[in-house]
């Protein structure tokens, strides 16, 4: 958050409609994303009640656990859900791209596409994470045998939830968060957590303004919550009697249909909202670095898919080295993601300009042929003076690059009120005269920033067997136990 975002919120509040926070779309939207609207039973950690799932607006499957406390019904649900999700994963691979062999001559490939899962909110992500945790250790043999698809689903859901933590990844996304990345509303972040209210501000129905649409969205009768928590009044007045009727009927088909109907009524409004949101996102032009980030997602997907058969389910807790490496990866991804968004989008770059880490303005003066002849050989070092009204908070000597063409680098030579003098150091070709068009001309609008993609490189971590004693020494190899498989799920 910054004054810039806050200002957009103020304007949204006054105008009664959301204001853009981005001029391009910063996330990938798949051609056929798998939209999931899960519900869980109140009071339980991860007892699924229902899920509405599908990869097209007119192709929704409703799965319901008619008695969520019944373990067998729960695993039956997990098995059906697994088939849908796993089928989507398998059909979202696309073609196979051959990549140049790796350093040690390994064959490398990348799938042409990857599955994308969309849930309404963070709670939905948390639910998938817990559902993954509660199913991935299950055994397909022995006294508590489950359908073979169940532990496979658990491992995939765990993997998706893990990728969700990865900044910039689009494999699993919470819709409220994606929308908040692109629009500011005139309500607080707490209220933005309600998908219906948030969309009400962004794209109000005819005849309503943002606040009116958001107010309507807060009534659980007209707009049921987007899950995974249900509306307590619905629980007490509709769901509980319907489940009781199902129990009394001994699993009668009609009682189950009535229950399904009631739950469908809770899920369908959110389903429509999800696809409306997908449409809004698709209408935004894609940011320049989005395909690159999706390529990283595809790499991650390819790797996990290829090694799935050889690997154990993810351990309950990461061993120290893996945890440290993961944290480091997340930090690097965050850093790169922040920079990429700013380079892609002048509205995001404006945040850095406001913070003084970037400055924009018009070139007032330019010496494109200036040479630095103090060394043995002359070097091309054009001078560029940029007039700017931005509050520059960079020091003389800082390396900056051009936001529109990050290859063009320079160094701040002089800072004066309202102008910055730069010595350009790279990105103009190898000759002693700059490549045509590489040095901005007087009158041109430019923006330079100290931001850079990949400002810190990959660190080295010890192998698992060299885990230092400070971190408990080498951990034992993780092997899932029977106890994991037999864990109660009540």
């Amino acid at each position, binding site marked *: *958050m*910054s*004054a*810039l*975002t*806050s*200002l*957009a*919120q*103020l*304007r949204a*509040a*006054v105008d009664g409609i*959301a*204001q*853009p926070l981005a*001029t391009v779309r910063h996330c990938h939207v798949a051609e056929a994303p798998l939209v999931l609207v899960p519900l869980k039973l*109140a*009071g*339980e*950690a991860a007892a699924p009640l229902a899920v509405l799932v599908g990869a097209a607006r007119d192709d929704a499957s409703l799965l319901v656990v008619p008695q969520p406390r019944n373990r067998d019904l729960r695993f039956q649900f997990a098995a059906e859900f697994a088939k849908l999700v796993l089928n989507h994963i398998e059909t979202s691979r696309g073609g196979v791209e051959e990549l140049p062999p790796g350093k040690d001559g390994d064959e490398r490939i990348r799938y042409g596409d990857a599955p994308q899962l969309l849930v309404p909110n963070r709670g939905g992500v948390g639910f998938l994470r817990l559902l993954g945790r*509660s199913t991935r250790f299950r055994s397909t043999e022995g006294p508590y045998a489950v359908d073979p698809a169940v532990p496979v689903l658990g491992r995939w859901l765990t993997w998706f939830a893990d990728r969700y933590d990865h900044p910039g990844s689009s494999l699993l996304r919470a819709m409220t968060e994606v929308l908040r990345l*692109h*629009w500011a509303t*005139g*309500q*607080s*972040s*707490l*209220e933005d957590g309600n998908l219906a209210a948030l969309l009400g501000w*962004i*794209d109000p129905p005819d005849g309503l303004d943002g*606040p009116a649409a958001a107010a309507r969205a807060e009534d*659980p009768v007209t707009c049921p919550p987007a899950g995974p928590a*249900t509306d*307590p*009044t619905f*629980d*007490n007045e509709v769901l*509980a009697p319907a489940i009781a009727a199902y129990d009394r009927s001994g699993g009668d088909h009609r009682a189950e249909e009535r229950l399904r109907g009631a739950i469908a009524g809770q899920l369908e409004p959110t389903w429509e909202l999800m696809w409306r949101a997908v449409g*809004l996102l698709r*209408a*935004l*032009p894609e940011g320049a670095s989005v395909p690159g980030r999706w390529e990283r997602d595809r790499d991650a997907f390819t790797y996990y898919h290829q090694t799935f058969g050889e690997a154990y389910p993810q351990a*309950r*807790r990461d061993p120290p080295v893996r945890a440290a490496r993961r944290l480091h990866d997340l930090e690097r991804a965050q850093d790169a993601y922040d920079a990429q968004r700013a380079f892609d989008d*002048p*509205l995001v770059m*404006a945040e850095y*300009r*406001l913070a003084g880490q970037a400055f*924009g303005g018009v070139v007032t003066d330019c010496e494109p042929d200036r040479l630095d002849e103090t060394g043995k050989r002359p070097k091309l070092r054009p001078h560029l003076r940029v007039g700017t*009204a*931005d*509050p520059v908070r960079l020091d003389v000597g800082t390396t900056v690059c051009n936001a529109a063409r990050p290859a063009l680098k320079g160094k701040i030579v002089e800072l004066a009120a309202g102008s910055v003098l730069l010595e350009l150091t790279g990105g103009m070709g190898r000759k002693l005269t700059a490549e045509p068009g590489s040095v901005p001309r007087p009158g041109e*609008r430019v923006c330079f920033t100290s931001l850079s993609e990949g400002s810190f490189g990959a660190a080295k971590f010890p192998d698992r067997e060299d885990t230092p004693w400070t971190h408990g020494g080498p951990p034992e190899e993780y092997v899932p136990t029977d106890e994991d498989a037999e*864990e*109660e*799920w*009540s």
Partner: protein
Amino acid sequence: MTETAPDLDRLRGGAPPRNHDARTIAALTANPGCARRGVMDAAGVDKDAVARELGFPSPFGQSQFAITRGNAFEAQVKADGCAELLTLLRDGLGLAVPEVAYDDLEVVAGNEGRELRHARTRRLLARALESGEGTLFDHPLLRLEIAGQLAYLEPDVIAFQLAGRLHVIEIKSFAVVDGQAEPEQVAAAARQSAVYVLALRRLVSELGHDPARVSHEVFLVCPENFSNRPVAAPLDVRPQLAVLERQLARLTRIDRILDALPGDLTFGPGAALADAVRTVEARYAPECMAGCEMAFFCRDEARACGATGALGRSVRDDLGGVDTIGTALALADGSLDPSDDLAETAAQLRTAARLRDEALAAVRAETLAGAPTPEARGARDGAA
């Protein structure tokens, strides 16, 4: 303090005072700057009823599934004289619990009168502190002075005596999965437990003992992973205790707020209720929605007067404390000359406005030049 009591009675409009529970007392610490909440809570006004009367009913319902699950789990842990709980304390936490005595203080000889129950709690705890007898005291009825009034606390907890010290054991039904629980739920449990620790400490010092004999370490008992099997974890509630004590001390000075209010103010039902409530200043923040019955009314009021706080504390902070949206936007577009103390904020806002407009204008120019598809333009216009 006694002088304020008649004032507080009048504020309730003749209704009996609403009793606090640990949840409401813990919630007092959530928004200490709110005078409205302070006054209403001190007077024991039924805020839920007031909010309903005002047309802003609070949406704090609880699902019967959650209630059933919570009760079942608690009953299971406490079954057979807390057999499962003792196993947890001994084996799970490695505590040396020697002999065991379990006293349930819920009902005294068929009588559920509060004074009687509280007297029994006092008596038993006094004996326990002197002789070291007794291990588990279930459903103690505690008392805490809130703004000069004695509030009875009906804790769903067990006081557990170990090596001469009392610990609070709180049973909650949210799951601990692989050693981790939802942070918000743990935080809420810690705040509530702190209330019980404080009330127990007050009782212990009334009985002439060192209040430190009530430990700041409470034990949280929750279901493990996805099962019904309980697991116990120690929880240090010192930070919550400090906040709570400071907040309660502040509450007792409610008379100062009362002095500034009209002498005939009352929150009794009637046409004048809304005006009466508005007389006392509120400090609404979105966090209020999580714990205060008045939140929807206050939010409506905050929005109506364009308060920046309604957008969230961070927005208000970003705006350097400018209170209203109108002022902030006027500072941003330069139509209002800032006072000296707002000069910096105003400069920042003006820069922000310029940068935002510049970025949006550049994109708009580009879009027009590049002739986008009708859908793309429609979407962008729709969003702008």
